[in-house]
């Protein structure tokens, strides 16, 4: 049987291993829980993790470029808070609900980009600082007040392709799913088919070389951090629409979960590596694991321990594979 080199490459890739882990975990959960393998449950998981997926995609782009952004949860919160306050006071429609958070996201991303580029301090330090500043200012100004009472059109949501399953439950492609799929498509195209996407990979692979080649590093920094901000803004909108509440502390604190998903998906903290498929699988793994633990009735404190263990195991396997690879290279014909 002839196997193409592309297939071989896929079978050796970290995405494939991740896929196997997810399939294995899914099989176990199907056997030990009643509810896991049902359309209803899987649909719920998809809807409720979509905003994390959107942020994960943005973070992946930053990681590929050789940086990191920790502040995106604060960006998303600030964006959704301002959007929610505006539509409750002044009304508006979906366009307003979309444009406000993405504009704020892009602006806060630009702040990160300018600081990272000009200060030449590692982006993790800068974005931890901006996370605190963005979030602190929001809490100070709003005194941490929750927002409810959305207008009816916002509460009803937006959906396409309504359909009923055999058991009579209604499903639809709601706002969160539509947006998530659009984000996947746009980001995939951006990274693999556009010159700027390839420049982002190149910059993450070798910043000095990119500079010598005459890449516009300032432009690339702005693009990357603003894209992260843009997606954080969208994620803020999606999450607010989903839970119909804006609480300043509901997204902040989940940044490490997103970092975990992206790193599990094969993006490297050293820059230059990461794929859309990997990130999707990374988010999927985190999502079904948390869902599975919930269905099994395990305390939510355990979730953190399990996530931590999974990250440790995954990076250990990566490190071990690299060691094997190095050994193979060092082999001498004796």
């Amino acid at each position, binding site marked *: 049987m002839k196997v193409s080199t592309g297939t071989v490459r896929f079978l050796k890739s970290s995405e494939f291993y991740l896929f196997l882990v997810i399939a294995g975990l899914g099989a176990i959960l199907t056997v030990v829980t009643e509810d896991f393998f049902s359309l209803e449950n899987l649909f719920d998981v998809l809807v409720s993790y979509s905003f994390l997926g959107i942020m994960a995609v943005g973070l992946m782009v930053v990681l590929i470029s050789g940086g990191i952004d920790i502040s995106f949860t604060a960006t998303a919160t600030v964006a959704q808070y301002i959007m929610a306050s505006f539509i409750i006071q002044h009304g508006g429609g979906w366009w307003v609900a979309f444009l406000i958070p993405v504009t704020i996201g892009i602006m806060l991303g630009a702040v990160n980009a300018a600081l990272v580029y000009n200060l030449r301090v590692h982006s993790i330090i800068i974005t931890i600082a901006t996370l605190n500043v963005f979030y602190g200012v929001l809490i100070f100004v709003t005194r941490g007040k929750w927002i409810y009472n959305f207008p009816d059109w916002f509460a009803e949501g937006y959906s396409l392709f309504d359909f009923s399953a055999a058991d009579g439950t209604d499903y639809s492609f709601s706002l969160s799913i539509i947006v998530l799929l659009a984000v996947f498509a746009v980001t995939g195209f951006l990274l*693999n088919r556009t010159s700027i996407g*390839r*420049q982002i*990979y190149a910059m993450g*692979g*070798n910043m000095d070389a990119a500079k010598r*080649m*005459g890449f516009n590093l300032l432009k690339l920094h702005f693009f990357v951090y603003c894209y992260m901000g843009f997606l954080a803004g969208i994620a803020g909108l999606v999450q607010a629409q989903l839970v119909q509440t804006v609480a300043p502390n509901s997204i902040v604190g989940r940044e490490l979960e997103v970092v975990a998903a992206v790193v599990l998906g094969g993006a490297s903290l050293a820059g230059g590596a990461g794929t859309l498929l990997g990130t999707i699988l990374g988010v999927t793994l985190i999502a079904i694991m948390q869902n599975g633990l919930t269905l099994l009735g395990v305390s939510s404190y355990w979730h953190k321990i399990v996530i931590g263990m999974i990250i440790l195991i995954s990076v250990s396997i990566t490190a071990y594979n690299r060691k094997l690879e190095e050994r193979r290279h060092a*082999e001498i014909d*004796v």
Partner: protein
Amino acid sequence: MNGDNFLELRNISKRFHGVQALKDVDFELRRGEIQCIVGENGSGKSTLIKIISGVYTPEPGGTITIDGVSQSDITPAKSTHLGIQVIYQDHSLFPNLTVAENIGIHQHLETGRQFVNWKKLRQTARDAMSKIDVSLDVERLVEKLSVADRQLVAICRAIAADARLVIMDEPTSSLTRQEVDALFKVVRDLQQKSITIVFVSHRLNEVMEIAERVTILRDGLKVATFDAKDMDDHKLGFLMTGQEISYSALTNGFNREKTILEVDRLSKKGNYRDISFDLHEGEVLGFTGLLGSGRTELALSLFGMNPPESGQIRINGETVHLATNHEAIARGIGYVPEDRLTLGLIMEQPVGGNIALTVLKTLLTRCNLIDSGKQKAFIDQRISDLNIRVPDAEVAVNTLSGGNQQRVVLAKWIATHPKILILDAPTVGVDVAAKSGIYEIVKRLASHGIGIILISDEVPELLSNCHRILLMRKGRLVGQYLPSEISEKELGQKINEG
């Protein structure tokens, strides 16, 4: 301007914070020639390259003429546009991208191009490779390539960018002899395509092999440009340094009666096999062989970092098992990786601190704090022993002359009382004058009774510094030579055989 010239520089000067990096340099390149620029560190080679590639602007009064057109303000982008490509020592490749994308990377920077044309990118890469008869898998990631192949990718990238002048900075420094030959063939192919080549190199013998003309820089001034056929490496060395450099042959003997290290049938699968040799007190034992011959793996085994699978190591007659480098150090074995002999100094720190650094443990009080009285006595003793000329032990190392710095290095190593010192390629990337200083250190360490294992690629270095030379090939010891009984040429051939 002479119509044969691709590039002419006149009266080029450059000064950084009061340091004159280049002064009134005239330089020209003929179309399609291979020219080398040589000079010691700090002679202005890299400044000159950066002026040609537009990274630095020369001071007023200097002129740059490229292809008959005077260029007043040349920038990196403009020099690229004019067909000037620099291949830096690190190759400036993108390890996470494929061969095709690295070669065609300029396509991503074309103005007005928003989208990637993968088909065209691969075609560009194949075209560039076929011009110099290279075939690499275009889908392979550059990080999986050997150093030599990466260099080919960098050259292909220059070709793909329509280079008319390719400047290579130290292109041979991490290549084996075969790879250097392959590179030279590629360079001659480029010349056939009437591309001008500039080589910048420390390795004078290679310079002489490939270059048609040689320009020598010293202290920011151009000494002269010569036809390579009128030069030899001895003359070049003199012109570069302004001083007659001759490596004195090894005269001091060693103690044949006292064997300090015996290695008996040492083997490790995939590394080396059946290695036996011994080392005497005060002996300098050369190890050579191509990269991949197993010599570094063997050295690491002796230093406890790559435990052997079978065989014995005896130090002063006692069988030892070196499972970690900690044990090796405790047994009196030192290992100095490439060019760390001089880098082992902390330049901003005082002389005394540098000398005592490796032996701080022996200078502690009962409470495990440093006994400053003991430390001072120790340092003063070393300084007077080695005749280091310093006003006092508190001055920073970087204020000393080169010769005195080398004595500090010497003091530091002698302080640890090593019995065996392994030097792995100690002069790689070191210029001519500093090399002779390192050789002096090696000789003096040996005269203190330390047994030295000197791993090197450079035949003259081995012949003038070693008592015996052992040759490794594919993990085995295949020969032993005495410097007095083999010529440079013969040894060079033996190394490259098989």
